[in-house]
């Protein structure tokens, strides 16, 4: 049948990995680990972000790694907390050791209020990390020229934002996402701001290759049901893109 054929054929390749699901997820802000795992399973996500932090010797965190790996998810450590290229590079190298992966979500946000990414430091770190063998996925403003620079620097994908992290405002940068998608030769993953399944579907309809969702799942009243909703919405948006939406 046509639909199934489409789905099995339509895979996303980034660097050495092939993804069937175009919904990437984060592991932050869930109430507890059990809910997180159940939600991530419902999302069918194959790539989940993680952070790295200095161990607090008094209050050790749960082991989050084992259940993720057990469920077959690929890990995408991020450099959150880094305020400049130097800190981000250090964080990336630590993450590589900790998680034994050369994939890195490069995040540099000097401003603690809106957590918006720094274009200058991000490009600097991306150039270094790409040469250092990393599969670099930088979180950036929806700036088409910057995205071309990052592509030239050897990034494996770009992750432009839809709206400030955690704002749930949707695709406020839609006019620029369209240009980025039009011009990119590497996958475009819309990150940040996606607050509902309809936002995720819209990003996919525009031709984004994937979306990354975290807050909207984690803080829902029912995170598992919400994650399943996102999974369906991403499929719906992708299929609509492939099926050819009529113009307005």
């Amino acid at each position, binding site marked *: 049948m046509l639909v199934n054929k489409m789905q099995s054929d339509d895979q996303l390749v980034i660097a050495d990995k092939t993804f069937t699901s175009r919904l990437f997820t*984060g*592991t*932050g*802000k*869930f109430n507890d*680990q059990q809910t*997180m795992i159940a939600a991530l399973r419902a999302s069918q996500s194959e790539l989940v*972000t*993680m*952070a*790295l*932090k*200095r*161990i*607090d*010797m008094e209050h*050790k*965190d749960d*082991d*989050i*790694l*084992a259940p993720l790996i057990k469920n077959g998810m690929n*890990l995408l*450590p*991020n450099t*959150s907390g880094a305020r400049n290229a130097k800190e981000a590079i*250090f964080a990336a*190298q*630590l*993450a590589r*050791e*900790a*998680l*034994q992966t050369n994939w890195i979500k490069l995040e540099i946000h000097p401003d603690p209020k809106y957590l918006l990414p720094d274009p200058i430091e991000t490009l600097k770190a991306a150039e270094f990390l790409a040469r250092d063998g990393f599969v670099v996925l930088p979180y950036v403003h929806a700036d088409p020229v910057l995205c071309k620079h990052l592509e030239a620097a050897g990034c494996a994908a770009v992750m432009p934002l839809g709206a400030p*992290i*955690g704002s749930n405002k949707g695709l406020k940068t839609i006019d620029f996402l369209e240009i980025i998608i039009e011009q990119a030769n590497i996958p475009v993953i819309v990150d940040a701001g996606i607050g509902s399944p309809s936002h995720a579907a819209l990003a996919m309809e525009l031709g984004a290759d994937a979306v990354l969702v*975290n*807050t909207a799942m984690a803080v829902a009243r029912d995170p598992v049901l919400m994650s399943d909703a996102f999974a369906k919405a991403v499929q719906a948006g992708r299929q609509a893109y492939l099926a050819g939406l009529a113009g307005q």
Partner: protein
Amino acid sequence: MKLFVNERVITIPADCNIEQLLTLLESPLKGSAVAVNQHIISRSTWTEYKLNEGDQIALFQAIAGG
């Protein structure tokens, strides 16, 4: 032998290597990364890398995050 782990003073036996340190601290090997005096120590050398008096150890772990 005294050294610093994430800014706290820790006393451990001399000739201790990194893997032994983590075991002493009951810290998981998996998902962890270690820097000694700002240099990241590759996991593959943890059993060889001898710690010295006064070393600044930074110990990191993967956690949930966006």
